[in-house]
């Protein structure tokens, strides 16, 4: 196990060097950040944020393992990740072995982890907590739109004025995070987006509907239809679906791999994608979550392989991309009676990309000492998720004002966990 892993990791790192990810893309990213100085919007041009929601509350302690803490092994006799299997990051924390494909990005300074992040709201209900994380207003249920949509509503710029692809969610429905008045697309599968008919009839039918909406629609129906047909036209011209994965990247089979591959295709097609969203379920591991192998490990395999494939595929372009993982809360420090963990509080989130202040555990780590835990049982939250998201919106995308994005939460850069190079 550990030999093959080392070989794999080394192979991955070599691969990176060979297609110029490191140091080239990092060097250029640093240069871009330095050159643009305080002109945030300039720095933000062409940038993309990819949000990846781990629905069901991921066990942060198994993603970013505090292997330097005895308490961790005391509390989890059956499910702790064995010290010899952990992919060490900084002597105290390490990656789950199934996330080993991400280690080269850590080494290259493109990956940071925030191990104790979460919501100030203390609910342990999945649906409330997911709702809060997507609305961006913890504790307030009546918020109608999502924070990513509010960002689009309030950050007007010419670059995104003409593209229907500014905000895209992969899935059958528009998730809460992108709900709201700013245009956003829900795409289940890029290859099937459009008016569906036999290949020889599709164009004609598309033109017919376009003519119908041009002629007889008014108001929002007219503008939305215009965006739809514009999107179809842009997709037809750019034809992102034919873009094969590059640099030897291999996306794992499954929904997440497909979504990330299609996000990469949109980015490569220069369609103006600014915020992309995908989600993944199966993290609610109350029973038999396993250790370096098992249920949770399987999910992490898919996550790690998908993210690594995405970053590898994008190569040089990764310098303008930031991937953020998020989950509604973490899980109990102590394993439960059925070899799993129950609903907790703080969890870990990963930030990957060319603007990332990487090779770094960000935010204060409260430790696993019972006195330092939330209610004596859970990882305490030391970074409000709005500070993490807000930092990325500000320093990666160039948002100038977060007051409308996270209403009622005064933005304060001194609370930013420092995951993006300022």
């Amino acid at each position, binding site marked *: 196990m550990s030999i093959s892993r080392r070989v794999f990791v080394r192979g991955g790192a070599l691969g990176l060097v060979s297609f110029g990810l490191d140091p080239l893309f990092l060097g250029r990213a640093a240069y871009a950040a330095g050159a643009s100085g305080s002109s945030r919007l300039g720095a933000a041009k062409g940038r993309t944020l990819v949000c990846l929601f781990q629905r069901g509350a991921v066990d942060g302690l198994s993603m970013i393992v505090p292997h330097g803490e005895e308490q961790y092994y005391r509390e989890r006799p059956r499910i702790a990740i064995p010290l010899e299997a952990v992919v060490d990051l900084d002597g105290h924390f390490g990656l789950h072995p199934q996330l080993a494909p991400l280690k080269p990005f850590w080494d290259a300074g493109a990956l940071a982890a925030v191990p104790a992040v979460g919501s100030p709201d203390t609910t342990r209900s999945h*649906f409330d907590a997911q709702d809060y994380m997507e609305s961006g207003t913890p504790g307030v249920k009546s918020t109608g739109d999502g924070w990513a949509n509010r960002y689009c509503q309030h950050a007007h710029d010419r670059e995104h004025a003409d593209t229907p692809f500014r905000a895209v969610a992969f899935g059958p429905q528009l998730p809460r995070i992108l709900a709201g008045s700013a245009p956003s697309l829900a*795409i289940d599968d890029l290859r099937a987006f459009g008016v569906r008919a036999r290949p020889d009839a599709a164009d004609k039918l598309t033109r017919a509907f376009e003519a119908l909406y041009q002629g*007889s629609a008014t108001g929002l129906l007219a503008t939305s239809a215009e965006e739809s047909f514009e999107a179809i036209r842009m997709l037809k011209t750019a034809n992102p679906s034919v873009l094969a994965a590059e640099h030897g990247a291999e996306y794992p089979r499954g929904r997440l791999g497909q979504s990330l591959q299609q996000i990469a295709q949109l980015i490569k097609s220069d369609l103006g994608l600014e915020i992309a969203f995908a989600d993944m379920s199966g993290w609610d591991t109350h029973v038999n979550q396993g250790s370096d192998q098992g249920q949770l490990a399987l999910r992490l395999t898919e996550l790690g392989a998908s993210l690594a494939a995405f970053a590898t595929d994008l190569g040089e372009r990764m310098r303008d991309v930031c991937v953020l993982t998020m989950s509604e809360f973490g899980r109990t420090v102590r394993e439960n009676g*059925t070899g799993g963990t129950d609903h907790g509080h703080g969890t870990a989130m990963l930030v990957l990309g060319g603007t990332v202040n990487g090779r770094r555990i960000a935010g204060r780590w409260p430790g696993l000492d019972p006195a330092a835990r939330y209610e004596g049982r859970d990882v305490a939250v030391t970074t409000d998720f709005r500070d993490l998201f807000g930092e990325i919106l500000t320093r990666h995308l160039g948002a100038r004002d977060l007051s409308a994005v996270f209403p009622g939460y005064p933005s304060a850069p001194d609370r930013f966990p420092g995951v993006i190079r300022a």
Partner: protein
Amino acid sequence: MPTMNRRVALLALGLGAAAPTGAQMAPMTPRDSALHVLNRLAYGSTPGLADRIAREGVLRWVDRQLGVDRADDPGLKDVLAQFDLLQSRPEDLLRSYLLVQMERRQEKRDAAADSMMSPDERLRRLPPEARELRALGAELPQLVVVRATESDRQLAEIMADFWTNHFNIFVGKNLDRVYLPSFIEETLRPRILGKFEDLLIATAKSPAMMVYLDNAESVAPGSQPPVPDRMARERMRGFARGRGGRPGFFPPMPFPRGGAVRPPANQRGATGLNENYARELMELHTVGVDGGYTQKDVTEVARILTGWSVERPIQGGGFVFNDWAHDRGRKTVLGVEFPAGHGQDEGMKLLKLLAEHPSTMHYVSGKLCARFVNDTPPDGCIDDAVMAWKRSGGDLREVVRAIVRSPDFWAAENRASKVKTPLEFVVSAVRAVGGVPDSTPRLAGAVARLGQPLYQHVAPNGYGEQQEDWVNSGALLNRMNFAVQLAANRLPGVQVNLDLVLPLASEREALVAAVDRLILGGRMSAQTRKVILDQLADVNDPVQARALAVGLALGGPEFQRQ
């Protein structure tokens, strides 16, 4: 609008004669009026229905729709008999659910070594009760679609949908997957056109709402259950450890997945108030967010409702008032004093106070007008509704009647001014072509794919009534695809036979005119007519031509409006 115009307009409608052309009023034939009420008080017309209503008299039809004694159409008896859900008692559902939870626990232990098992394999291994529950769960949204499509009591179905959203319950919250059927059938549907106060009280006492908004967990700080309860609690403990659910998507998953046999916190040793229900009760159910309450009021309402809870699942899981959990101190809500020393009775007093509050009349009337008249409802119809509310003591039948009789309801600028929700679009399309849905969940699945998975709205505000909630680019394309599939009878879950409603025509002009009449009520714009005719120009097969014309009409902009 001047009162005289209004009276003349109503007179004309009642007599079934042409309405007068007021200065701001487009000419309105009885058929136009019939189409308008079918768009707003029903899920659209079915072949020939608008003509029948125009002949019968539009207001007479409205009165008949308002006058129903119960929501269910007796004519639907056989159709509804296909839904096992309606034959299942809540206690049975709960019992099966508990059984499944226990079996699953065992099964999970057995399968511990086998974590590589595929989802299909896992599904096959589910106990029969689990598969049964899953099937029943899938019936819930389909029942909505079938009733909306086929019931003659259309307004009742519209009202059921309205209150389902007003008192939204998310099916994925803990035991709500078990409580939801009785919430719909027994709490809401018998009261859709009754007194608002009764409806409010019924929802407040429903286990579904108690669980959804956590009131079941709210206890007076420091209160302790009596000793026998605590012992029972200990016995429950091993069996009832909480397990949270992942929101949404429940049909494709094993039914009890992530659901929790989770006794309310007051049986697990909760320590204090939970304000969740108290806040939403005022913000969403009654006075509205601008209704003039403070955080202090929210806390006081929560205190008044301490002890309102649900029984443990093994005891039946119904409503229970736990005296031990109730805060008997003095409270003040919206300036009204609730003296110390009271129990469940002060909760009733509170609900009556809220139901009759002027802010509630305005807030709920405004929502009804947004549904029936315009996304941004004019003050005039809200005032009419509030007047009727006051006069009738909150009789919803009279409130809705007043809205329909308000001149704003008929004003030209409010006609075809609203965009259909996915549910309204799907159901009205199926009705327009005389389609017949089956009892599989596939048509409800189409509504979900268009963005409105029924009973899966997580937040308590329910699905929105504004066009911004529904119109976005991806969603519009999905509507077009749905329309094309439906017209070609290729949509799973519904049977469409165009031969019955639209005879084949050799003449293209005649075909488009017939499509116009069937689907758009004869109000197709010249541009739409031209585009459809252009499209038909090189289609020689009359069956194909008909399907194309119908698909374009259903997927086009005019049919998205109501």
